[in-house]
């Protein structure tokens, strides 16, 4: 929930609970010396849009922050009426948030004098405490999002820097391996092949990192639109068919005849299915089978990728979508892999409001089901 929504609920609840004329939340700025009206209910729009108020000009807020509560029984001849809406005949204010460091005040306004008494401050405190907790959580979330964005940017920049030397090294090694730098002995050739293999693993790691960073940086992503799930899945199957044949794995595809449109980006869907079908082929030994099928299911378009491969150990299942995680049997079965593929898949599926589930028994294959809400154009 957005911060503004949290505060809006707080003031409407307070107004109703106190049968008040209205309520408002005032938030302190970073210096703690000015108050800004952040949400209001039953108060004029102009009251909410006023300039930030120096704390010194609001004796009611000062008293609430200092004493834990402030009560104005009759605004007419009370000097603390400064900062109240003109319509308010009485008011009760308490600090918002934790005792030591309040983030503002919550104030209810009465249409009549003597509408509140200090005994009611306890109830208002409870509301303010809940509001403060929600406020703190929202702030913490915003901080986390900022850290996350910084992390993505760091990965993006550093992968560009990392990729260049890898590319150059790979080109140099290929030039040597193909004999353009002079003849090689068998032992030298063996060494260069090993270097080449290591560079290829490094390259795929860097590419996966870049993919992951790209999927986290919304400003880089293409805008979403209705996309035919059928073509994306068909492309992935087509792309992986040669690899499956090479390995002696049968790759079956059960296409759905009607178009299944989902709200996504084509590139994002391609990444999801190249990853999932690629994994199925990768972790299925020779003579095994991978079956990809597509179908509508209620409000969803479903893609099911079932293989007869090595499966997923029970202890690995909860960690499957974590970055850099690789199941123990995956590491033994296939040395090349970064543990980023499924993290990228999960991120993209979430981005497209889809879901992904996996059912597996170790040694008996795995079945991944991906569902996206079916896109229906508005009539």
């Amino acid at each position: 929930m957005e911060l503004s929504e949290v505060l809006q609920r707080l003031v409407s609840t307070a107004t109703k609970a106190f049968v008040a004329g209205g309520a408002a939340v005032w938030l302190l700025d970073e210096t703690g010396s000015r108050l800004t009206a952040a949400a209001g209910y039953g108060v004029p729009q102009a009251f909410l849009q006023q300039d930030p108020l120096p704390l010194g000009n609001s004796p009611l807020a000062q008293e609430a922050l200092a004493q834990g509560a402030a009560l104005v029984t009759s605004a007419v001849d009370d000097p603390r009426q400064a900062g109240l809406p003109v319509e308010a005949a009485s008011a009760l204010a308490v600090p918002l948030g934790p005792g030591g460091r309040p983030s503002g005040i919550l104030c209810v306004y009465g249409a009549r004098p003597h509408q509140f008494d200090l005994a009611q401050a306890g109830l208002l405190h409870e509301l303010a405490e809940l509001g403060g907790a929600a406020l703190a959580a929202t702030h913490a979330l915003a901080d986390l999002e900022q850290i996350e964005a910084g992390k993505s940017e760091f990965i993006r920049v550093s992968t560009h820097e990392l990729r260049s030397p890898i590319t150059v090294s790979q080109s140099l090694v290929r030039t040597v391996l193909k004999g353009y730098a002079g003849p090689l002995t068998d032992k030298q050739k063996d060494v260069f092949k090993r270097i080449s293999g290591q560079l290829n693993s490094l390259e795929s790691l860097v590419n996966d990192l870049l993919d992951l960073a790209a999927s986290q940086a919304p400003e880089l992503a293409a805008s979403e639109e209705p996309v035919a799930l059928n073509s994306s899945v068909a492309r992935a199957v087509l792309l992986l068919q040669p690899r499956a044949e090479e390995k002696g794995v049968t790759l079956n595809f059960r296409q759905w005849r009607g178009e299944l449109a989902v709200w996504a980006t084509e590139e994002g869907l391609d990444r999801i299915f190249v990853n999932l079908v690629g994994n199925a082929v990768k972790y299925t030994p020779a003579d095994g089978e991978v079956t990809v099928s597509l179908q509508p299911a209620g409000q969803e378009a479903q893609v099911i990728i079932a293989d007869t491969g090595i499966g997923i150990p029970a202890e690995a299942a909860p960690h499957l979508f974590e970055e850099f995680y690789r199941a123990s049997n995956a590491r033994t079965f296939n040395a090349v892999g970064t543990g980023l593929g499924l993290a990228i898949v999960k991120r993209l599926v979430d981005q497209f409001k889809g879901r992904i589930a996996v059912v597996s028994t170790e040694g008996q294959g795995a079945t991944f089901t991906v569902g996206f809400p079916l896109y229906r154009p508005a009539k």
Partner: protein
Amino acid sequence: MAQKILLVEDNPDMVVALRMPLEASGYQVFVAASGQDALRLVQELDPALILLDVMLETSTAGFQVSLQLRSPDPKSQYAAYRHIPILMLTAIHTTTSLRFGPDEAYLPVDDFVDKPVDPDVLLEKVRALIEPADLEADHLTE
């Protein structure tokens, strides 16, 4: 006489990786490390082919070089060099699923070579671009 190839590449190690297979195949390789150098050397050498990296002093300097060389303006100082085939070095195909190809207006090059470079693929593309036109000339001088 050996055919001249102008290699526009600012990474000295990449130059080594590309120069070896080209020289082993009998081409004479000249190197420009910046877009400016490239435009100067094209006029000086009139090479048979330009092997052009996209990323030079800026991440798209290579595009600028190709746009200048292929400028449709008849009064362009590079008008005499418009016919020289350009082979562009790029990592774009291997790192994204973007498909892009030569485009007369936007990206006037003849073909792409993916980085990391496979020397056999490079030589195949170089031959495909310069041999058909120059074969006749070679026969005439023989």
